[in-house]
């Protein structure tokens, strides 16, 4: 609903846009940390530094850190730098649902720490691709619908990633995420946002469980990517880091479910 309200307010506002040449004053370069740990998988971590906002290339992964992953059972391991992918990888420690993990990053004289639970994911029933007839404002579309029965007594948070024949469908400003607040539990064909399928393609949806902290990270990121400068909506700001000491970072521990189906003519 929040997005809908912002959209409603922005209808008039966004009628006139123009790229302009301005140069905000430079500020402090930030350490950027991304860590992903999924069920039954090893961890992957990328360390980088922020660059100019208009930079056409992503800042490279840096291999001068010492990174340690530990769990709440006393297990720990030092991650290994992979110079090809420019990321750090775990060796043996796999993600387990409901375990808590701590990621320690020693980099350029500072130590950054984040902890996260790997939350359980309630599995969805299925996905379907439904033909949406042509209307005045949009062409005929095949869109993904999700069917699930979920509990609403406990707060759950989700991240979605959609694919068509393994082609990632999220645009550069699209993050699809949700929580179970205000839901009755019967998700009888909800629209996630993927509606560019063609007949014959294999549609895939990856569902990730999120902690509340990771959900807030994605929520703030989405606000940044789709903001109106704070005129009608909450002003964009730095995303809430899951790491301490000024590093900007995401430590996402997720349980995963993958659903697939083939798009049929309708």
């Amino acid at each position, binding site marked *: *609903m*929040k997005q809908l*309200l912002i959209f*409603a307010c922005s209808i008039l*506002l966004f009628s006139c*846009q123009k*790229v*302009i040449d*301005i140069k*905000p*004053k*430079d*500020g402090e370069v*930030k350490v950027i940390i*991304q860590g992903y740990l999924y069920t039954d998988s090893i961890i992957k971590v990328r360390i*980088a530094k*922020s*660059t*100019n*906002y*208009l*930079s*056409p290339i*992503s*800042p490279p992964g840096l291999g001068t850190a010492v990174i340690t992953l530990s769990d709440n059972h006393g297990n720990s391991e030092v991650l290994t730098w992979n110079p090809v992918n420019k990321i750090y990888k775990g060796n043996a420690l796999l993600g387990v649902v409901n375990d808590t993990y701590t990621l320690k990053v020693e980099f350029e004289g500072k130590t950054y720490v984040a902890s996260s639970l790997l939350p359980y994911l309630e599995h969805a029933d299925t996905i379907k691709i439904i033909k949406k007839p042509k*209307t*005045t*404002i949009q062409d005929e579309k095949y869109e993904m619908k999700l069917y699930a029965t979920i509990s609403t007594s406990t707060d759950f948070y989700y991240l979605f990633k959609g694919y068509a024949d393994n082609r*990632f469908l*999220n645009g*550069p*400003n699209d*993050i699809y995420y949700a929580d179970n*607040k*205000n*839901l*009755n539990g*019967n998700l*009888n064909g*909800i*629209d996630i946002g993927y509606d560019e399928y063609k007949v014959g393609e294999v549609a895939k949806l990856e569902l990730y469980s999120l902690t509340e902290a990771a959900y807030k990270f994605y929520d703030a*990121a989405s*606000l*940044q*990517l789709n*903001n*109106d*400068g*704070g*005129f*009608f909506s*909450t*002003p*964009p*700001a*730095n*995303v*809430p880091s899951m790491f301490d000491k000024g590093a*900007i970072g*995401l430590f996402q521990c997720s349980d995963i479910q993958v659903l697939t189906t083939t798009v049929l003519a309708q």
Partner: protein
Amino acid sequence: MKSLIYICFVFFIGANFAQAQKEYIVSGKVNDTTGLPLIGAIIRISDGSVGVASDEDGDFKMPLKEGDYTLIVEYFGYKVEQKDIRVNNNVSISFILEEDSQIANEVVITGKAPDENVTSTKMGSTEITVDEIKTLPALFGEVDIVKNIQTLPGVQVAGDGNTGLYVRGGGADQNLILVDEAPVYNASHLFGIFSIFNADAIQSAELYKAGIPSQYGGRLSSMLDVRLREGGPKKFSAKGGIGIIASRLTLEGTFNQGKGSYIFSGRRSYADLFLLLSSDPEIRKNKLYFYDLNGKINYQFNKNNSLYISSYYGKDKFKFGGLFGLGWGNATFTANWNHLFSDKLFLNTIYTHSEYSFDLSISQGVQAFRFGSGIKENSVKQVYQYVPSIRHHIHFGWSVSQRLYDPGKFEPSNPNSIFSSNKIPNNHSLEGALFVSNKQKLSEKLSLDYGLRLNMFNNMGAGTVYNYSGDPTNSTTIDSTVYKKNQIINTFWGLEPRIAARYIVNDKSSVKLGYNRNYQYIHQISNSLTPVPFDVWTPSNNYFKPEAVNQYSAGYYRNLKDNTYETSVEGYYKNYSNSIDYIDNASLLLNPQIETQVHIGKAWSYGAEFYLKKKKGRLTGWISYTLSWSYKKIDGINDGKKYFAGYDRRHSLNVIASYKISERVTFGGQFVFGTGRPIGLPYGGYQIDNFWLGVYPERNSFRLPSYHRLDLSLTIDQRKKEGRRWEGSWSISIYNIYGFLHINPWTVVAQTNKDSGQKEYVAIYFPAPIPSITYNFKF
């Protein structure tokens, strides 16, 4: 409490006892030739030292010492009348004024003495009448008194086509907007492009930036007192206008031999009516319109009793096919009974009702829902006016306001919906006030206007207060306390002193000093720069402490060339306590624990305002320039360092002019310049997954480019014909005439272009230039 009032009263009155002299009351009535009372006519003695305005019934009372005087009566559009009188007893005298079209065309009288800006103790207040602005350029041809209020010194704007008021460093929710005494909680149509005030129904609007009269309270920064017109003077007349966005129609007249008058005015936009011409049924389903209705009835029961009832009702409606719909609107009602106890004591008893509501819905599919929020207020107020002598004019009284705050209800709107209901509990409050003030003339040169307002605010149950282990923004909820219906959750008291002193330097100039303290007990939950229709209000509570401001101001006022030119310089300093701001990425919608999203701290603002107004002649208008600073410093935000408020602008210049080229043709122009406002804009970037995020510096640290625009208008009256009642005029207006050369960004956003993938800074701005044409008529 009784003793406190007694002490105040004795203080106010006492200073006069020692110098009491033999005085008499000169009373009477001012009517036009049809017998209708003229409201706001100025009755003054010839040396200008004493003057009063006629009230809603055309009655006036003027205490004078024994002696011979010449009384002069002035009223806009009427010939000046004068009579010589001898005062050696109470005197009753009546005036009948004749219409004078020549004067009406040449002189603008605002119902006040022409040198009132110099002689009165008022500071920081300016009145604009619709007559002054009707030939000025108007966006989409809709004359909008709020847009003109925005050109006054000390008032900042958020951007093109926005009706929000930011007065002397205050936020948009810190303005008490009254329509015939009833508060309005959202004064905007079309997301703020227009205000709710239909110019045909409005008489005037007066903005108080300081020294708000003690009978009013509850907002920190300003009061905008909008007065609806009264019907008449003819038995029946109509006026209206047909524009490119909306059309208007006003019917007015008198009844029962002029004892009563009525006015009804309506306006509706009609963009959606053009959609009905589409062959596509989906497009025909779209709705996009606003409308408003104003009505006012005045009735004089007898010499001592009169009543007016006034009402406003307006709505905005948007519906986009079967996708979603939203709407919002205000409704107000005022009943004001005026009673005269004696020559020296009057009473106004005022009941007001005001409500604002917002709704949003999706009616189809499994994601169908309805959302609604709003606020309702009922108030009763009694204001006594006591004029014991020419040296004192005392107001005192009481008021009570009861409010219901609906923060939001979310529910499924069809049986297949995936949603469940979620109602954020309503809040309730009861606010009371006792007030007293006195305008006291200490000598021929020195006058004071001082007063006190004692507020009591109760945050009432039913309600739930959450308790935290520490600061709600970064601690956990321990438990909650549940309060029953009508149980008091919090009680806050506030004493608001105000004083203004005026010293007459000579017959053309004066110096004034002022101080006032104000409290605000209701808070708009809004984290955007400009208020949006779904912003909700919340009462002061355990976490939202009452906001308060102290304002100190000083000014020099000088009129030139027989009050043709009005000039002033005012300086102010304001400091706010319990100022509210929101954490980064605050989540406010349907959040029952809003306190987890806010920090409380201090704010301050200061500045200087320069004003030059030309009131007579072919060329009229004003120039205003404001130099100002607005800061906030709030622990938990911006690392506790001070930062600019989002509406801070260093320089603000407005040049408004109306030039009467001939009897039938008037040229209008408006030039606006302002320093860009501060926003947050990322300097750095980084990639997470496949998306590019920004590194933001300190809050509001990037300054938008300067804002400027020029608007022009031409008003051509149709030739008048003998015996023809119909009068028409064409208004042609161009808003932001060179907008194609210079854009005025509302804001700048950093984004990744979804097509090219490039990162860019994008200015978002209002389209320009915007031409418009309107036909106005009356008969």
